[in-house]
């Protein structure tokens, strides 16, 4: 097979050629002889290790009308991602090895992004008994989560943390106290009061974050907190980390790039769980990203069909189709603004999430896996949901101007996305 040469990309701020042999980077240097290599002209583009999204919903099996492994993978590579971890709230639930294998096999057939299934914590996500975590790991699951629902029973969570820990597997906790949600449809705050909607208190998230920290600390177990959205959650995790608790966490671009002000007009595309919060929370997310409290940026890519977002806020489905806007929103909000460096953003979007779920990711060094994304950092563009590869067009960011366009995505040394 021909080698691939990325010509003149910015690698760590320097103009470099990147020679790829098979799925590995063979050499990074100035002016590599192209020989008979296939060449990508990357002049003006920045090379980054391709992103890893440890929290997406690909909806297959069961909800293919929202998204499927093919459309979701296509959206992933278009967003600069070489690997995604898909949540188990499928139908049937990804709680057995057969579905894990199905997802992996289907992803291989599709042959775009690498798909790593996350299996359910509890059978049927019913919160009653733990799944066959050992067998699920053998089948290829990389973590356990009942995402979409909280593990309500603290005892079940305890068992899950201990049992999964025996297989050295992370448990990802969707932190939500359902009794505190109390039919709320958006953040409990000024906007909800103004617009006349029932609110969801921050406490519904924070009490569960606190519970899981206590469990992890008491048991000496490891826990990963999904999609944090509040200042209070960040503070709980910050303090826990300082005490040496084995807790990691993630947040999503919509929690640091948007607030519940987007819901003023009743746009259900901004309805998400946990809900968009207020400016003080948004700023707290950025602060938590800066100081290392947040380990990973994930999309919680949650595609829905058009009809599921219509008919007003109250009945609308929760979730944002976010995998194709993640980099631009993050880059614009965090790097362009000067809050963090591009290198830091890269860690949050690649190496850190890959480390949490224990998968190999790309890196820009010789011998490393050639999962590479080429981005045009100065390209300014307007987000257009109609151009999404995802079946889910449910984004509150349609029409927003951002910087940072993904031009190419390489997975295992092969071009899986090229902007046209």
């Amino acid at each position, binding site marked *: 097979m021909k080698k691939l040469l990325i010509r003149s990309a910015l690698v760590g701020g320097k103009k470099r050629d990147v020679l790829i042999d098979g799925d590995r980077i063979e050499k990074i240097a100035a002016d590599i002889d192209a020989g008979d290599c296939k060449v990508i002209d990357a002049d003006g583009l920045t090379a980054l290790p391709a992103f890893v999204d440890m929290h997406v919903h690909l909806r297959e099996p069961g909800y293919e009308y929202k998204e499927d492994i093919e459309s979701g993978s296509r959206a992933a590579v278009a967003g600069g991602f070489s690997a995604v971890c898909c949540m188990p709230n499928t139908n049937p639930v990804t709680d057995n090895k057969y579905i894990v294998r199905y997802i992996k096999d289907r992803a291989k057939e599709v042959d775009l992004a690498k798909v790593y299934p996350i299996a359910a914590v509890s*059978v049927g996500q019913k919160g009653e008994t*733990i799944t066959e975590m050992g067998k699920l790991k053998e089948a290829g699951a990389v973590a356990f989560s009942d995402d979409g629902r909280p593990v309500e029973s603290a005892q079940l969570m305890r068992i899950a943390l*201990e*049992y999964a820990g025996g297989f050295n597997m992370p448990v990802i906790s969707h932190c939500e106290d359902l009794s505190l949600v109390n039919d709320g449809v958006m953040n409990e705050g000024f906007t909800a009061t103004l617009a006349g909607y029932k609110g969801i208190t921050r406490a519904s998230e924070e009490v569960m974050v606190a519970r899981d920290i206590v469990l992890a600390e008491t048991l000496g177990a490891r826990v990963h907190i999904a999609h944090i959205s509040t200042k209070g959650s960040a503070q709980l995790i910050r303090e826990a980390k300082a005490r040496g608790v084995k807790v990691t966490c993630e947040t999503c671009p919509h929690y640091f790039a948007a607030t519940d002000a987007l819901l003023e007009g009743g746009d259900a595309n901004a309805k998400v769980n946990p809900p968009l919060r207020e400016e003080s929370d948004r700023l707290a997310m950025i602060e938590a990203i800066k100081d290392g409290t947040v380990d990973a940026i994930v999309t919680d890519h949650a595609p829905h069909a058009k009809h599921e977002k219509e008919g007003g806020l109250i009945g609308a489905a929760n979730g944002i189709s976010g995998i194709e806007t993640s980099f631009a929103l993050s880059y614009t909000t965090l790097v362009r603004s000067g809050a963090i460096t591009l290198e830091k953003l890269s860690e949050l979007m690649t190496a850190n999430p890959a480390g949490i779920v224990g998968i190999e990711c790309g890196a820009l060094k010789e011998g490393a896996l050639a999962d590479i994304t080429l981005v045009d950092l100065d390209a300014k563009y307007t987000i257009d949901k109609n151009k999404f590869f995802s079946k889910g067009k449910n984004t509150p960011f349609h029409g927003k101007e951002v910087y940072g366009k993904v031009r190419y995505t390489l997975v295992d040394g092969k071009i899986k996305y090229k902007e046209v």
Partner: protein
Amino acid sequence: MKRDFLCMDGVSAETLTRLMDDATVMKKQVLSDNKTCDILKGRSVATLFYENSTRTRCSFEDACKYLGATVTVVDVATSSVQKGESILDTGRTIEAMGTDAIIIRHSSSGAPKYLADNVKCSVINAGDGLHAHPTQALLDLFTIREKFGRVEGLTVTIIGDVKHSRVARSNIVSLTTMGAKVRVYGPPTMIPQAAERLGCEVCSSIEDAFIGSDVIMGLRIQLERQKKGLFPSYGEYARFFGINPERMKLANKGAIAMHPGPVNRGVEFSYALCEDECCYKDIQVTNGVATRMALLKWVLEG
């Protein structure tokens, strides 16, 4: 002063050795055509089992008979216990009939000690809650010594629900007393807090649990534990924590597999292991009678 046998704590290596030496003699008697003797002739023993049992209760009854003692089986299911009689009143009633020793099994940890503190006759613990099962540990010790000729220096690894096992607790104590190295392994949901402070090591993988072991001891997975969800399924348990001939090959040459019974075939022990010559579960049963004879003699005759 009366003698009780409530747990392995504080039982010296000297006492354990003497009991095993006596059991060696008793075993010959059990296996002979002349099983009975007069050592405990004229003595009276009662069994008081608040929990189900086959092995322990029958072997105690046999042990009493072989030693010439009379044995009264208190059937808890049809006794005044069903009328709400307390353990203390039941115990004192039995004692008042001239009983020399009460053998008690109870689901509450500490029940035999409570009884022993309140009656003048001897009390033998045949298993209390999650706390202790010292006669099982004694027969296990005897079985190991009989096979290897010693206990000191051997590595014994206990695999399974250590957290909820009175067998494991008693074994850890007596094996450690006799100089064996004790290790434990199982789903983390079944490993007790501070296991290391019991004097045993916690293995990091199923392979580690077998490598270097002379004795692998399986523990019964209790259905009620499964209902509490401490592990997901029997199939998963067998796959990741089960004992089978292939895994036994990782252990030291001549290693044996023991189990207090009853075995869940295909779960703790594979079907093949149950038929393998390294499986000592039936030998343990025979040894249960001999060691309980030695114990009864020690308790009642000194």
